[in-house]
């Protein structure tokens, strides 16, 4: 089971549809300060159902919608799609590929889709937790957060291990 692709459209500094295809091994994302690297990290967290705007540096969830720049108007919605390759059957689903899509527009309406079919956040979380990718798993370490494992309470570390288990 691995990450196949990530597609952003209208999300933070990515107004145009941008697809990143991931291969096995180590993928390194580089670029200057402010170019958009951590926005990619935020997109993954967001697609996996992140509920707190603060965790992705916003104050309201609509902050993730592209807000405009020189010569480009603000977008009306943000959309991120995460495609997981399930060809080794890790996920108890019939599909060889699992697509998780999340969308939000300016007036606050949003939706989740699993393989194109509308679903609830709970359905997405269930699929993810089967692979240990749940909220507490820390499979995503955001910028500035690596030392949190050391400064956190013993109880939080236990939750991290339980999530993985």
């Amino acid at each position, binding site marked *: 089971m691995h*990450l196949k692709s990530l597609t952003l459209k209208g999300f933070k500094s990515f107004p145009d549809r941008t697809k990143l295809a991931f291969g096995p091994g180590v993928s390194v994302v580089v670029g200057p300060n402010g170019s958009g690297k951590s926005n990619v990290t935020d997109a993954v967290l967001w697609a996996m159902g992140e509920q707190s705007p603060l965790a992705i540096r916003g104050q309201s969830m609509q902050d993730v919608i592209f807000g405009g720049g020189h010569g480009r108007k603000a977008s009306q919605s943000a959309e991120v799609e995460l495609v997981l390759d399930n060809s080794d059957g890790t996920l108890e689903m019939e599909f060889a590929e699992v697509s998780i899509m999340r969308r939000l527009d300016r007036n606050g309406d949003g939706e989740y889709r699993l393989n194109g079919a509308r679903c609830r956040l709970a359905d997405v979380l269930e699929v993810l937790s089967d692979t240990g990718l749940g909220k507490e798993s820390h499979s995503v370490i955001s910028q500035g957060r690596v030392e949190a494992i050391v400064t956190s309470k013993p109880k939080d570390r236990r939750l991290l291990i339980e999530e993985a288990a």
Partner: protein
Amino acid sequence: IRETFEETFAAAARNFEQLAQQVFPGGRGRLRLVREDAGPRPVLGGQSADASEAEAAADAAEADADVEERDDEDLHGVEIEITPAGKSMKRLTLLSGGEKSMTALAFLFAVFLAKPCPFYILDEVEAALDDLNIDRFLRLLRSYREHAQFIVVTHQKRTMEAADSLYGVSMGGDGISKVISRRLPPEQAAEAETAGSAA
């Protein structure tokens, strides 16, 4: 899932002891289950090696005893103990920025080896590391890249040398991000590594 926690924790604890020696050569580390109500043990310096070993044995016995009492399990958390080379075990909080990062990464990899997630996203986790520790971190990445995908976000050149695939993010004067990606063939990646280490 209770049972699985014990198994996963036991495996993670074994891995952590090994990894701690890798990231703190000459030092050691371990994970302990602790009750929530146990206050932080007073960490006074100057304990003789014998005393601390006896204490460690007593702790291990106590930890096993704790684990038996299932009704108390909600009080348990995971404590991290690290002793870098030559130092006596101190509070985790007193560790340096780089030492805290290495400890956190050792913990993460210890849990990962016990129960891998399909992918990991690590955003600038090496910011506090000096060159020697960056190398240790990259060596860990390279040794485990068969087991999971690692997506590493960085602005450091050295980290790029460990890449199987490279994604260059740039932003024009219009506030719009663009990505160009390139898969590095294994020989090319190896070449880049040799060139990098010679530089």
